[in-house]
């Protein structure tokens, strides 16, 4: 391995710890802290069942982040394809050995631990694409032949997740992949053609009933929430009422009447932003959005300052996933996006997603700590 590494400063663990991007860690911790207090409020002033575990999980996930960040970005690049293919294999196996949960087969029981291959794929896909473009020259990026491998890389997991069925994650994976391909330098012309194609696919999916009834219902409800105030649109309407009644400065911590009276479903997961917005108002909600944006922009600045192509694209992919989570979730609870069951990163209760996000930021951290390391462009590193 050492022959592949270009000469550069080599540092010890302590030095690298000091090299960690502490502002990023603080931002992430603040966001997780919002999660802890909001979950405390959702449980009507109890650490159980969610708040305490959320905090503990964050600490575990944070140590995972730091651990990943300490490992050289070269090693992660080397592991890109293995991780991707392992995740793909697990995804393909899920329909046969997975647990059915809420009508979908998404989980794999793995030595007593539940494991969701689609979550691992979020990181795996980003890494694999970054790894792929690391090996391409600028003029190759928009060459049609060189587009086939990334199309397959994205298409395979998206397809597998879609049939689970988990439309939300499938779209998230596809969108993340497309963003990476776009940032890698895809020509606008091909981008436009692709967009037109996506619209056509979306239309035919609707036309020819590829989607499950509940998925169509959700989309139709999203388009017109007043259509059925007691059905799917009910949640959205209640969410808007809770948020709107929060007003400028909110009803105060633990005083969110709409949420305390359980008008909202899945308060601890998908609709947690609503709770926060009701209790802390416009000021609080915008504050949380600013924290998220700060994380995103910090991530992008890390990407810009990284030397290796792999690091840049991988970081952008992670940041893209994170951004999509935030935008879709907040958009969803305010009626700007369909209710697809996407959590609010680090605030919604749920260990797997938190681990995915933090592992992703571990990669970002690694890119930061090892920003000066360049890696040879080679496709046969393994």
């Amino acid at each position, binding site marked *: 391995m050492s022959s592949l590494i270009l000469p550069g400063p080599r540092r010890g663990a302590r030095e690298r710890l000091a090299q960690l991007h502490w502002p990023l860690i603080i931002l992430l911790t603040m966001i997780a802290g919002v999660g802890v207090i909001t979950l405390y409020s959702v449980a009507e002033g109890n650490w159980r069942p969610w708040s305490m575990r959320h905090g503990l999980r964050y600490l575990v996930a944070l140590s995972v982040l730091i651990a990943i960040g300490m490992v050289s970005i070269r090693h992660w690049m080397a592991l890109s394809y293995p991780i991707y293919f392992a995740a793909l294999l697990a995804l393909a196996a899920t329909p046969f050995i997975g647990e059915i949960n809420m009508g979908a087969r998404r989980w794999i029981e793995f030595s007593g631990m539940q494991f969701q291959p689609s979550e691992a794929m979020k990181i795996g896909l980003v890494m694999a694409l970054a790894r792929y473009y690391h090996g391409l020259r600028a003029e190759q990026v928009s060459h049609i032949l060189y587009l086939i491998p990334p199309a397959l890389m994205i298409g395979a997991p998206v397809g597998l997740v879609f049939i689970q069925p988990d439309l939300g994650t499938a779209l998230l994976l596809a969108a993340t992949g497309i963003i990476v391909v776009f940032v890698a330098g895809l020509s606008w012309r091909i981008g436009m053609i692709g967009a037109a194609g996506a619209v056509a696919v979306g239309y035919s999916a609707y036309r020819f009933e590829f989607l499950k009834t509940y998925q169509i219902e959700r989309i139709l409800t999203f388009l017109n929430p007043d259509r059925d105030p007691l059905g799917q649109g009910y949640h959205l309407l209640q969410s808007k009422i809770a948020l709107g009644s929060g007003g400028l400065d909110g009803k105060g911590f633990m005083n969110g009447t709409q949420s305390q009276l359980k008008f909202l479903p899945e308060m601890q997961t998908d609709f947690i932003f609503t709770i926060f917005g009701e209790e802390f108002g416009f000021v609080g909600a915008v504050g949380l959005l600013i924290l998220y944006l700060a994380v995103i922009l910090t991530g992008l600045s890390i990407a810009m300052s990284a030397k290796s192509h792999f690091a840049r694209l991988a970081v952008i992919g992670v940041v893209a996933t994170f951004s999509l989570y935030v935008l879709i979730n907040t958009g969803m609870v*305010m009626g700007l996006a369909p209710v697809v069951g996407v959590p609010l990163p680090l605030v919604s209760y749920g260990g797997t997603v938190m681990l995915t996000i933090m592992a992703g930021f571990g990669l970002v951290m690694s890119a930061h700590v090892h920003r000066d390391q360049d890696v040879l462009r080679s496709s046969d590193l393994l």
Partner: protein
Amino acid sequence: MPVINTHDPERQEIVSRRTVLFGGGVSLLFVGIAGRLYQLQVADYEKYQDLAQDNQFNRRVLTPLRGEIIDRFGNSLASNRKNFRILLIPEQSRDVNGTLDKLSKYIPVTDEKRARIIREIRRRGAFTPVEIKNNLSWPDFSRVNFELPHLAGVLPDVGETRDYPLGEASAFVIGYVGAVTDKDLSTQEGDDDRTLLRQPGFKVGRDGLERTYEKELRGHAGKMNVKINAHGRVIEELSDEATPPVQGKTLTLTIDAELQQKATKELEGESAAAVVMDTVTGDILVLASTPAFNPNDFNVGIDAGLWKELTNSPYKPLLNKPLSGIYPPGSTFKVVSAIAAQASGVKPSQTAHCSGKVWYGNRFFHCWKRGGHGTLDMKGALKHSCDVYFYEIAKKLEVDILAGVARKFGLGQTYELGVPGQKKGIIPDRAWKQQYFAGQPENQPWFQGETLSVIIGQGYVTSTPLQLCVMAARVASGRAVRPRLVRAVGDLVLPEPTAPMIDVDQDYLKVVRDGMNAVTNEYGTAARSRLEDPNWQLAGKTGTSQVYRITAEDRAKGLAKPEDLPWERRDHALFVCYMPYENPRYACSVVIEHGIGGARAAGPKAREIMRAVAAKNPAARTPIDPRNLVQRATHRREG
């Protein structure tokens, strides 16, 4: 593959540019999200604030108890009883079908019922509770209550339903209540009342006094604000903002429930009507009609088969016979005729010879007694109900005078009783005929021959049993007594009316009373209907009104006797009477449809009814004072 230096400025530059582009795009989207937040939380704050209030606070309507209806002594005629019901608030159920599925484990929900419920939800809107089932048994009701945490939107409710203890016996007086129709809702004025009408299972008066006094009986809705959670569970009652419901007013009637039941029992098996009234106050004590429907069947929504049976029966169980049944009064009309005769100059001592028939115009007029009565004066004519005596008078009697006397004695008019559907009947005179035969000028003039029919209560003349009772009461008292059915509305006791004297020579009445006394007590036509008690001497007049004239052809076929005719062609039997003969207090009329003869069918029934009246003598007892009624504690109920 060769190792290539990764320094590729062109590639670097594209990625940097695109990263900035991506960052910019994401930032813009964040601004968009913030803008949306601004719209929801700042711009539209008030709108959502209101909606949140609506979410949290629910204004419950507290349904008032319907006013009770009691008889003159305070016995219940219509009251309310507990009704265990299961309601569903569609808004809070979210999945109505799912909830019904779960509910069907405990109480049966047929597909038909489900369709009806869904229809009702559509009609009333998602915010109004709909009734899933009523009249539940306590075990079923408590089982649903136990499972309540799993049944979103289901609301158990202890409602009230109307109870008519007398059943059939009071059907036509009280009427019944029924479900609210769209028409009720659209014609109802006042938001509060409209809200009340929308309450599940709310009933409004559909017939009888229940209908007429709907406004008084309904009461006023109370209100209560409650704080609810998303499942519709009340978590706090904000009692300081609550107003309790006000029960409807109690309606106190003049009816004597006990006598009403006895009279109804007496008429059982016949298609008949009986009215008993106080000749002084006009209080109606009995207003019986048989056969009758059971108003308790109507409360819960009548079954189609029973309805069909009721409408198709030849005994007309849906017809309120005392008030809406019109019958030729037959010989009972002679009471009026005798007065009219005297008013136009006939002396009571004037006699006439009855040979069984008399020729007038172009035909014979027959007496009911084929062989004739011989020579009779007016009293005798009444006593034996001789038709020929009255034919002789009718030859010279002006029909307008006869009609005028008939009206003075209460015929041909309706009374303010509060029971809808009262009929006027016909008291023919010249003006009436002109109007009746408008367009047939040849029939418009009055022919004297027609007076011969009218004077014995046949021909055009028709009346209701109530009018006949009023006639008897007026003859007995000499006063223009007006019948009444309602003694008090709530606390307000209606003043006992003092009836003015009728402006006819009171001596004329003496002859009639004398004649009526002879009918029962001096071996007249209703000797069998005599009351033995010397304190309660009954004076009466029989009547038999022809429904079908037995023709020569019929006689040739051997159809001589009325019993040979099919039921619906037999004569109606009538009887009017009052008692005691001296110092009268009660008047009674009985009509037995197709009962053949007044003396044999109607008289004995009237006698038994009057016997019961005499035994109880309700006019001598102190009626209940509605001001002393203790209203039942106002019942609070969620709806």
